[in-house]
């Protein structure tokens, strides 16, 4: 992993961002804007899980922390009379605080023990939302969650968030900000320490790195952004339900894990690309109806076998094939 940034990469990212900004101009369908907003939320989730994975721990509590962020932000607005702009970060912050509190005991467990712990904790969060009827509506769901308040820029414009287009832009901005923060964090000294811990935690501890706190920090950062994603999801859907097969069920956590590895967990862009492609693919296969999961599963296996480094490695592979054919 080279620390020097290649100018081509920056160019590709800029072109992609401009493309994303222009999407609503030629894509009028509100259905597709809805799908793209969900893609954005999945991208935040997968980048957060990838940040936790930097320390070598797989968190499977994504759905649970997302539920916590979603419900807390919605309730801050509906019961606590807070502004949405304050409630969303507060939802994320609550997740981070819970992550620190839970991280201390949980991080003693490693590997699959930690994964199962987070999976079960996530399920407990979801079941709490499911059974705490007076607060969350229980099986009926929590409905009537307000959209963000309009932003008034004096003399220029009034930005309202009542349409899919404006919400698309809001999610886009949050996604880009989150990705920027997580990217800088992963490339910083902290991120370097995280990866040191993943490679050899004993060695890291022996040179004076506080392994436990670095792991908890990664967990808290990941859960913060997962909470933000959940809160955005709440104000985007206006309706939350915590049933097992819904967005907060444990399958979401598993799918996020699949996105991460299929995209390619070695690079920062990999999980993001994986989330984008694998969330959009089932929409492309929509006419195939009940065959979709089979196609999805088979595709995942296919990619793991034939692109062990993930989808993100594909361009490099094409380049090296090209060089082989054309010659150096």
């Amino acid at each position, binding site marked *: 992993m080279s620390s020097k940034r290649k100018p081509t990469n920056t160019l590709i990212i800029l072109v992609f961002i401009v493309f994303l900004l222009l999407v609503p101009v030629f894509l009028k369908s509100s259905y597709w804007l809805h799908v793209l907003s969900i893609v954005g939320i999945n991208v935040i989730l997968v980048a957060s899980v990838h940040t936790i994975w930097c320390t070598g721990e797989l968190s499977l509590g994504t759905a649970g922390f997302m539920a916590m962020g979603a419900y807390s932000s919605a309730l801050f607005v509906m019961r606590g009379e807070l502004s949405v702009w304050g409630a969303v970060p507060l939802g994320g912050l609550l997740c981070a605080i819970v992550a620190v509190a839970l991280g201390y005991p949980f991080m003693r*467990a*490693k590997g699959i*023990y930690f994964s*199962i712990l987070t999976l*079960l904790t996530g399920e407990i969060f979801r079941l709490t939302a499911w059974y705490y009827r007076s607060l969350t509506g229980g099986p009926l769901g929590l409905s009537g969650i307000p959209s963000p308040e309009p932003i008034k820029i004096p003399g220029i414009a009034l930005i309202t968030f009542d349409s899919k287009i404006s919400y698309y832009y809001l999610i886009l901005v949050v996604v880009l900000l989150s990705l920027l923060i997580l990217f800088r964090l992963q490339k910083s000294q902290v991120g370097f320490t995280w990866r040191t811990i993943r490679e050899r935690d004993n060695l890291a501890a022996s040179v004076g790195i506080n392994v436990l706190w670095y792991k908890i920090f990664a967990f808290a950062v990941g859960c913060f952004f997962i909470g933000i994603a959940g809160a955005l999801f709440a104000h985007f859907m206006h309706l939350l339900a915590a049933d097992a097969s819904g967005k907060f069920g444990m399958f979401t956590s598993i799918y996020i894990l699949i996105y991460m590895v299929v995209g390619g967990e070695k690079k920062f862009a990999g999980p993001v690309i994986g989330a984008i492609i694998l969330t959009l693919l089932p929409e492309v296969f929509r006419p195939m109806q009940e065959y*979709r999961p*089979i196609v999805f599963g088979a595709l995942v296996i296919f990619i793991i076998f034939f692109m*062990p480094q993930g989808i993100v490695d594909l361009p490099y592979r094409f380049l090296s094939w090209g060089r082989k054919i054309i010659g150096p």
Partner: protein
Amino acid sequence: MFEISSVVFLQSILNGLVLGWIYILMALGMSLILSITNILQFSHGEVYMLGAYVAYYFSVVLGLNFFAAILISVMLMAVLGLVLERFFFRRLRAEFLSSMIVALGLMITIQSGVTLGFGINPKAIPSFAPGSIGILGTRIGSDRIIAVGISVVLTLLLFLFLKRSKYGLALTAAPQHREACILLGISPDHMSALAMAIGSALAAVGGALMGSTLVLNTFMGSTALLKGLIIVVLGGMGSLLGVVVGGLILGLVDGVVLVVFGPVAASVAPLLLVVVILVVKPMGLFGHEF
């Protein structure tokens, strides 16, 4: 809390034990596969579900004897285990994350495939041993007693196989030192295949027994997978005794809490219990570091 009589309480304990022993069959295979091939077999729940459906197909659709159907199911699932090991997991041997994702892909594919084949509606296998036996005022179906009996016998056989037979010892040796095993003439690949075959066969038995006594639908695999994962980490990786103890704890909690505290507690309590146990003992009850 409800007022409950001691008979109801005893009944719930018995139901919990039955549940526990069926979970154990499922979890033994997962634990075996995890400790010997280092694969978190997420599609194990689907092997279990497929085992139940094969038994259903042969016993109900084709009208065979139920135990013959179980035998066929066991053999087919053992072959499936071999196929999965040879064509999917062997090439990802050293890659924990990739093999896990392949297992997840298999899980999604098998589950939706079986749903397409058999339909989404639950099926039923007629009880293979009608009637019930009374124990201290409680009634328990004789098919459940036979299921527990089969489960206990299979667990003991597996224990004997692993501790006493040459192949069993080779199996436990394989994950400990790969090179040394090759030098001694033990092929780690063959041992992985053996573990997958045994594990899948046990899952088939568990699925078929579960399918005939309690539920049979295409989503039973996901539930069983979660139970299996909980048992494996609760007992500690690589410990047979841990699996048995973990399975019984989980079964008892599932059975007793439902009756004593109602359905809300029944769905949260097992999760909470495992979280607490793992926080206190991070390697599980009987786990140890390799």
